[in-house]
């Protein structure tokens, strides 16, 4: 039993790695996508909006498969030489792009929800555009996006198990090996790993929300 627990822990490291890598890159990339979609250069804005639609409109599992297999297929069938991804990096790239698109929509909602009067008040006080962003609207934006971001990030924890579709040995795949040997409880127990992780995140987000409770 100790052995099984140790191996499940080992496998859960993959879930954690995918989780943190996705957050690290998707949070800033989401900002880039958000600004792109708001660009005054309409063709760029439309291109990015279409891209976000495709990514949000198709299953993440399918995207993981595509990012992993398509570069190799192009190479073999058409001799197109683009870099291929490993099992982990393929999953990570798909996750980063997918989550960046979702985050960009959260940012957009946050930016749109800040009253125009806040910008105008900054302007008439002689502030520059960047001063208005950093000193006036940023904190309000962060406060507004924390709850939806928390939601999305909790979903990400559980989505990491989708990486098994391209044979990343994450926790559910590991537990499933025991199932095929007739042992079902390891699979059930994986739920606890996710529960504990999500529990910790819930506490963290609750703490941040309380920290920002001093203004409305």
């Amino acid at each position, binding site marked *: 039993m100790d052995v099984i627990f140790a191996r499940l822990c080992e496998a859960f490291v993959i879930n954690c790695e995918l989780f943190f890598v996705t957050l690290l890159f998707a949070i800033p990339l989401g900002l880039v996508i958000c600004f792109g979609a708001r660009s005054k250069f309409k063709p760029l804005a439309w291109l990015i909006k279409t891209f976000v639609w495709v990514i949000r409109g198709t299953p993440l599992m399918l995207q993981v498969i595509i990012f992993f297999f398509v570069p190799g297929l192009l190479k073999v069938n058409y001799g197109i030489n683009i870099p291929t991804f490993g099992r982990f990096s393929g999953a990570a790239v798909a996750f980063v792009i997918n989550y960046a698109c979702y985050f960009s929509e959260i940012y957009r909602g946050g930016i749109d929800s800040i009253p125009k*009067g806040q910008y105008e008040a900054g302007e008439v*006080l002689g502030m520059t555009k960047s001063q208005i962003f950093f000193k006036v609207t940023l904190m*309000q934006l962060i406060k507004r996006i924390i709850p939806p971001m928390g939601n999305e990030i909790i979903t990400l924890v559980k989505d990491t198990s989708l990486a098994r579709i391209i044979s990343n040995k994450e926790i559910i795949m590991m537990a499933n090996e025991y199932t095929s040997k007739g042992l079902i409880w390891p699979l059930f127990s994986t739920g606890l790993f996710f529960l504990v992780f999500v529990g910790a995140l819930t506490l963290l987000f609750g703490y941040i929300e309380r920290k920002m409770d001093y203004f409305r």
Partner: protein
Amino acid sequence: MAILEVHNIEKHFGPTRVLEDISFELKRGQALAIIGSSGSGKTTLLRCLNFLETPNKGTISVEGKVIFDAADPSTQKESEVRKKRLHFGMVFQSFNLFPQYTALENVTLASKLLAKEREDYKQNKNRILMEIEAEGKALLDRMGLADRADHYPHQLSGGQQQRVAIARALALHPDILCFDEPTSALDPELTGEVLKVIRSLADQKTTMIIVTHEMAFARDVADQVIFMDGGVIVEQGPAQQVIDHPVQERTKQFLSRYAEN
């Protein structure tokens, strides 16, 4: 000499004419009230003065110097507009205080940011910041809010928030202080405390433009009154003359509706 001269301002949003041929002058130390029904262009005029809207025609001069000329793009450069709008202070109908800052921080924020552009900022940083802080406190004191300096906007009543907003506008020492319906978002109860503050500013000869629906207040406090309707100035003159003895038919109609209420 007039501190503010506005000549032939015109503004349209698409095909809709919001302002047409607006011209007026304002002398230093005078209070000007702009009255008129909703949609008559009062607020847009104020927003033009504060560079929140760009007029399609006309000029705006402060102390004889043209700061805006619709025909001259060099007067509309982003970097210079930022400095030029400091001639004007603006108090909004909806206060627009920054929610994450205390009353005092709201008042001092812009001054602190502007101080960074001063050449002697690095050497005298602490002294400059202390001066700004002290001035902010003095301003809140003048607004009767000395004990509210550390409160956040959501902890203040509407009237208190608006007084903080007035202090915030005064902190930058504008030549002309603009009020956009400063009491329209307030209960009648809270309206009084804000009007009292504006009245005391008028007594201290602050140059002001007040867009308002408070006719009695405009009559008592303002030196000049402009009545606008449909984007044009229908009548302008000394406050008591325009409000008590209007000449134009449209002004009479407008004022009689107020008298009925």
